[in-house]
């Protein structure tokens, strides 16, 4: 007996897929990639979240309560900065005696102090000082845990530090910079470096973020980290039979004005949460890129479906001839796409896991330490990936499925490859123009002030407008394929002769297909050139700004603002002693209280006004030189409604309240170092022990000899870097370029996805032209020439997509910069070299995508193509 199946179409769909695994791969390649990016980004952020959870519970392991000093109100907002960085201000600490007091309370099993501050490992390599840090992570110095209950650090090798000549190093740093027990190492803590012997190597949850740690004997740490007789906080372990809250209240009662007691486990959760929010933001960005990949993917899936179905026209029409209804054909195709989407999304999840592992390894390779920990794939993420993959695939297959169901039963009997019907592109053109006009109106409405939509900011309106323009242009592309390719005609015929002619004609033959294939590339190139122009413009802006506003020959600052305490004052003195230095200005900063809020008060030399461009708004430089004179930034004066002559009361750490008179209001044209300014000479509260944050100086004449001399002086101060104007421009540019490279990296995924689209389209084009190519071969066209023809065709598609995308991207970037003109962005610059580089990359990508179809075309069996028997 014959088998009977209730669902024959389902069976056919399944058999089809089983027979043609390559189809599944081609169709789903873009879905696989898109889902993979979603999954990878999700795994990445989830794993980091869980790693941060572990980190914070590790930091507070075994600790019940943490006693912190109450900071002065206005300093609270800066507590995370804890006296690090260029702004030095006094953090309140807890006197040593309090540890004993807390220890003696009933219910306290143990209490020990913690000291933490800035310490930088230094290595001398070939006479040059190298600051040791893991990526951008900070560098800390701390006291070796003095209590037997402290579980924060675990010795891996050696022993604890016992005297002021010994140090324990964290294992990551030891490994990265090849340090061993008994090695000598120089540590910069405070202003002067000192040499220690490494007696132990230890690991801790603290070090997981990549920060370097120098652990000293307790008293040594207090001395080095400017905490003699004090600790930053006290950790408390509560006896088992006591209530944690009761003990907490007891400790608070000791000195409720100065002590703030927190529950360690709650704090762990809180701190982990705040970091997680940051990670969520990163995850969002990754998801946007995944979205782009999927959006491009949808184009390609639709195209591929069309191709596959066209190739199966005969089979489908046979089914129709045998009595299958249109509806059943429709369902057949949809169920095929369902199978494919499930397999594709599944593969995507697998690839995503691989990608996450690769990214993690990659970051570790570049020493951008994120906390270690297992990779976590949440079921939500997996399901989201699956749903997105399946939905996008099925939606993209609806139109092709509809078209396939319209196949005539007669098609099976006819002996020719069907050519797609030519529908008028006119309606499309009209709709496209209408849509993009709306976008243009929205966009230009902002730029030329004739339309301001409510509830949208100018920038948002431009953004939406640009999006709508993009959609409109996407609709138009099939209609402009022919005119566009027409531009190629002459040039291509001139270069490639008849093959060029054939290739351009082919691209014109199926304008929709050419356009939708090019669109996939267009999306990527739009974003790439947008990023390119914006960053190039920013660079140009930075360059012109730096040239305009930095009048000094040299600027000295911290090499790494995240890790450095500032510039020891000795440097400024040494430089001033040089005869060649004609003018030098120092800048210092501290946090002060004003109206119950923290504000940064800067102290500068008078010369700063010659070395950095400032504009007088009210008052003059002379007025600023008086005792108790206060200089204010223009925007601060506006915000605080302060005018010349106003009295200002500032709370200065360790100094108390002082009254100043507003005497000078000015505009500081670079990134200002502070909001309020006083003259350094007049301010006794900036002690000689303070550190400079920035130095600017001029020399009588720049020369290589002088530069060497200056460099050798600066080299004696680790953590300090000197830059001239070129150096500043270069530094700004490097930061921008780094960002751009990251964006490029993500966007190249979309180009990669577009590659598959080109391959599919060309495969179809080759398939449809079986006879044509066979004929060409028969009358004497070399295989090489056939391949070349396909390559030329592919280059047309990629140039079309790249040119449109680049044009749109540049236009969008221009609009954006115009919109931001009021915020000070005035320079619009296009990097021609990078633009052409990306168009070049697109063409190369197109040629790579054409390799397989080209080989297939050139291997076409001539007889099969021309025979009729």
């Amino acid at each position, binding site marked *: 007996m014959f088998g009977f199946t209730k669902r024959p179409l389902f069976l056919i769909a399944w058999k089809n897929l089983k027979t043609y695994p390559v189809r599944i791969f081609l169709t789903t390649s873009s879905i696989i990639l898109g889902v993979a990016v979603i999954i990878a980004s999700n795994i990445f952020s989830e794993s980091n979240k869980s790693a941060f959870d572990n980190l914070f519970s590790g930091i507070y392991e075994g600790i019940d309560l943490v006693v912190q000093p109450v900071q002065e109100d206005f300093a609270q907002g800066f507590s995370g900065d804890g006296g690090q960085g260029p702004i030095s201000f006094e953090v309140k600490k807890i006197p040593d005696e309090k540890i004993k007091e807390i220890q003696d309370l009933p219910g306290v099993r143990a209490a020990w102090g913690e000291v933490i501050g800035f310490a930088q490992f230094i290595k001398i390599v070939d006479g040059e000082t190298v600051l040791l840090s893991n990526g951008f992570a900070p560098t800390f110095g701390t006291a070796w845990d003095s209590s037997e209950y402290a579980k924060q650090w675990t010795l891996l090798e050696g022993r604890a530090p016992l005297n002021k000549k010994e140090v324990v190093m964290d294992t990551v740093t030891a490994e990265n910079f090849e340090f061993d027990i008994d090695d000598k190492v120089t540590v910069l803590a405070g202003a002067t470096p000192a040499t220690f012997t490494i007696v132990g190597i230890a690991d801790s949850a603290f070090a997981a973020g990549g920060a370097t740690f120098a652990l000293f004997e307790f008293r040594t740490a207090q001395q080095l980290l400017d905490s003699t007789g004090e600790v930053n906080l006290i950790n408390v372990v509560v006896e088992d039979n006591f209530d944690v809250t009761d003990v907490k209240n007891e400790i608070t009662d000791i000195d409720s004005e100065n002590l703030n007691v927190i529950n360690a486990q709650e704090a762990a959760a809180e701190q982990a949460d705040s970091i997680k929010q940051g990670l969520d933001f990163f995850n969002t960005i990754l998801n946007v890129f995944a979205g782009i990949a999927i959006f491009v993917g949808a184009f390609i899936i639709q195209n591929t479906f069309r191709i596959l179905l066209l190739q199966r026209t005969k089979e489908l029409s046979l089914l129709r001839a045998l009595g299958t209804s249109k509806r059943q054909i429709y369902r057949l195709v949809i169920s095929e796409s369902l199978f494919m989407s499930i397999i594709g999304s599944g593969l995507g999840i697998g690839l995503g896991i691989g990608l996450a592992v690769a990214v993690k390894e990659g970051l570790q390779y570049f020493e951008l330490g994120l906390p270690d920990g297992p990779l976590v794939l949440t079921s939500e993420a997996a399901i989201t990936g699956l749903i997105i993959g399946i939905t996008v695939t099925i939606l993209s297959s609806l139109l092709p499925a509809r078209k396939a169901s319209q196949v005539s039963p007669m098609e099976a009997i006819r002996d020719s490859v069907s050519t797609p019907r030519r529908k008028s592109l006119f309606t499309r053109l009209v709709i496209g123009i209408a849509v993009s006009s709306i976008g243009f109106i929205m966009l230009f409405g902002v730029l030329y002030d004739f339309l301001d939509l409510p509830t949208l900011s100018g920038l948002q309106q431009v953004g939406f407008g640009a999006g709508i323009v993009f959609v409109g242009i996407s609709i138009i592309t099939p209609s402009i394929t022919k005119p566009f390719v027409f531009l190629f005609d002459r040039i291509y015929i001139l270069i490639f002769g008849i093959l060029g002619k054939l290739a351009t004609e082919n691209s*014109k033959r199926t304008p929709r297909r050419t356009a939708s294939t090019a669109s996939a590339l267009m999306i990527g190139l739009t974003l790439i050139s947008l990023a390119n122009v914006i960053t190039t413009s920013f660079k140009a802006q930075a360059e012109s700004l730096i040239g305009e506003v930095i009048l000094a020959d040299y600027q000295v600052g911290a090499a790494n603002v995240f890790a450095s305490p500032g510039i020891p004052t000795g440097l400024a003195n040494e430089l001033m002693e040089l005869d060649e230095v004609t003018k030098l200005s120092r800048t210092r900063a501290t946090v002060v209280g004003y109206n119950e809020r923290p504000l940064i008060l800067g102290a500068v030399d008078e010369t700063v006004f010659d070395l950095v461009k400032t504009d007088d708004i009210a008052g003059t430089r002379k007025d600023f030189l008086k005792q108790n004179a206060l200089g204010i930034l223009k925007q601060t004066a506006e915000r605080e409604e302060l005018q010349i002559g106003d009295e200002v009361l500032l709370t200065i750490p360790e100094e108390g309240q002082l009254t100043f008179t507003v005497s000078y209001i000015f505009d500081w044209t670079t990134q200002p170092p502070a909001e309020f300014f006083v003259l350094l000479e007049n301010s006794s509260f900036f002690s000689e022990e303070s550190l400079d944050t920035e130095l600017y100086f001029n020399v009588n004449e720049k020369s290589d000899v002088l530069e060497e001399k200056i460099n050798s002086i600066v080299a004696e101060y680790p953590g300090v870097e000197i830059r001239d104007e070129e150096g500043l421009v270069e530094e700004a540019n490097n930061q921008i370029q780094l960002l751009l490279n990251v964006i490029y990296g993500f966007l190249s995924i979309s180009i990669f996805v577009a590659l598959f689209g080109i391959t599919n389209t060309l495969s179809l084009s080759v398939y449809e032209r079986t*006879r044509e190519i066979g*004929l060409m071969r028969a009358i004497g066209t*070399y295989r090489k020439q056939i391949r070349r023809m396909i390559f030329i065709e592919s280059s047309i598609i990629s140039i079309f997509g790249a040119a449109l995308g680049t044009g749109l991207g540049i236009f969008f970037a221009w609009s954006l910069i115009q919109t931001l003109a009021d915020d000070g962005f005035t320079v619009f610059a296009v990097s021609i070299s990078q633009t052409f580089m990306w168009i070049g990359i697109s063409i190369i990508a197109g040629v790579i995508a054409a390799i397989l179809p080209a080989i297939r075309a050139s291997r076409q069996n001539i007889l099969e193509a021309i025979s009729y028997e």
Partner: protein
Amino acid sequence: MSKIIEANNLTKIYGEKETSVTALDDINIEFRENEFTAIMGPSGSGKSTLLHCLAGLDRPSSGKIFLKGNDIATLNDKELTKIRRDSFGFIFQAFNLIPTLTAEENITLPASIAGRQPDLEWVKEVVETVDIADRLTHRPNELSGGQQQRVAAARAMATKPEVIFADEPSGNLDSKSSRELLTFMKSVVEELNQTIVMVTHDPYAASFAGRVVMLKDGRIASDLEKPTQEEIVAEVTALTNA
């Protein structure tokens, strides 16, 4: 008349051992300059295979094919392609023209892919002979079937080939177009000194040829000089019934 193309012990076997089919069985045949030969035979007689092998579109399993004394059966794909391009012309049953090129571009296509300037005087003469001078800027889909085949014929002639191979050239045409095309082909041989080898199953088409070769089961059954249509029909009938 001198020999242009000659096949010695030509054998073509399709498939592997048990399932193999012998399409050509040790054929020896020669074609002379300025001769219009029709190859006939029932379906499966091997007539198309013979044409394909002679024209360098297919490779014989064994035997030699000499083009003006040079063996072309052993050439590689590139050399063979060059011979097809420079020494042969082709007219197929259908789909002779590249749809995206105009009639003129189709005619000069072999010269174009060779990177040569076509001999314009000659092309003009050919175009006038096939009577399509007023259709040169048209694309194939704007031409009738007969016109398309005449453009194909003009293309086959355009490079002044040694031999023109025609595979059922009138197979898809109505009787009027068919007669026009065949008359033209005959005049090309007689007036422009071309050599044509044509495969057909149609005795009427074959009657335009000066020589008719009958194949059966991969062997030459008969070789007739200047037969009339009646003689051809009689021979075909005899072969079919044999």
